């Protein structure tokens, strides 16, 4: 073996060693921005509207559990749920806030009953729900007021911050009569949300409601949204509902126009 051949062998061995050495894992470039929630979204999966969703793409979220109410609040809540179900079964549904053109408020507006638009600007994230023209403003890195100083409203007061690619939001100040799934709550209720883009067309929202006065522990569920590209939101003024609440029975009825 001459010197050249010897060096060639050494070089080949070095190259082979380099080729076989474990490579540093390189994160694949994402085809989307994991911090971009901007755009228009449908809830996922859609219960009925055919928007071309393929529910096999992303796992369906689990059904929302019943609120973990303390026993003294759970008994009346159970009774009310039974009353509502019985009224529906009898074909005489009880009028709801919707009958009176009252919007969902928080957290119900985030179920995205109708399409939802998210606008991201440097200091705030704005969520618009088509149903009832609901608008929710999440101020970035804001300081929430103390609970006793938080003026109650439908959407309350929200602050958001980034933890990695998670957008973490805290909300307080929801009016007593603004209820999700008919669950009563106190002024101390806090709604925690952790939103995460999961692929180019979906994001998820892990919601946890805490209320030491009414709940035995956290009430948690997940909502998932699918992008609805190029959608232009419709306006929604609840102008004249011909469904009305019967003043005696509280049941929903339909106003008949005889002309």
């Amino acid at each position, binding site marked *: 073996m001459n010197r050249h051949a010897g060096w060639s062998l050494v070089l080949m061995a070095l190259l082979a060693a380099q080729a076989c050495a474990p490579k540093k894992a390189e994160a694949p470039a994402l085809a989307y921005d994991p911090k971009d929630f901007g755009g228009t979204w449908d809830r996922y999966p859609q219960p*009925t509207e055919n928007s071309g969703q393929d529910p096999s793409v992303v796992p369906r979220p689990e059904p929302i559990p019943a609120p973990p109410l303390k026993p003294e609040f759970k008994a009346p809540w159970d009774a009310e749920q039974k009353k509502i179900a019985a009224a529906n079964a009898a074909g005489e549904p009880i009028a709801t806030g919707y009958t009176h053109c009252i919007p969902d408020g928080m957290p119900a507006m985030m179920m995205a009953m109708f399409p939802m638009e998210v606008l991201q600007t440097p200091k705030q994230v704005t969520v618009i729900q088509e149903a009832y023209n609901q608008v929710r403003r999440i101020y970035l890195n804001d300081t929430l007021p103390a609970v006793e100083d938080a003026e109650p409203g439908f959407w309350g007061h929200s602050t958001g911050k980034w933890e990695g690619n998670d957008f973490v939001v805290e909300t307080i100040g929801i009016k007593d009569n603004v209820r999700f799934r008919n669950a009563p709550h106190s002024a101390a209720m806090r709604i925690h949300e952790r939103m995460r883009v999961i692929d180019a067309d979906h994001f998820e929202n892990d919601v946890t409601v805490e209320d030491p006065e009414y709940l035995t522990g956290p009430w948690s569920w997940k909502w998932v949204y699918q992008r609805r590209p190029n959608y232009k939101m419709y306006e929604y003024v609840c102008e004249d509902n*011909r469904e009305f609440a019967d003043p005696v029975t509280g049941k*929903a009825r339909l106003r008949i*126009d005889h*002309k």
Partner: protein
Amino acid sequence: MKSRILMALLACVMSTVALAHHSFAMFDAEKQLRLTGKVTAFTWQNPHVYIQLEGKDPNDPKAKVRTWTIECANPGILNRAGWKFNMIKKDDLITVIVGPLRTGEPGALLKQVKLPDGRIFGNGGPAGPPNISIEDGKPLPAGAKP
């Protein structure tokens, strides 16, 4: 067995819908009616679009014309289902399939509408499908796509 599973799934979906918006339980989804007649008003507004129809069941020789208040979904749902705000006009002759009020009053929830030009539209998902044919009022086979 399969049909039972299907019914259970359907019931589950329907209950989700009821939770999602509001209950349509005041309307009878089973005893649907086919009505033909003249539009006296078409109101495109939230939370529901309404058709006023001077109509009757064309297959029933004893039926009298009544003025029906017919509830549709809202403009957003209907736009997404292909409707247009001006596709129905006063004095149009149309045919509808509806779920009538259980009270017997002339009010109903729309299931399907056939326009003078022959186009047929549903009322969006939450209102549910028709169970009789808009062409002749005969029952549609269970599970048939309207």
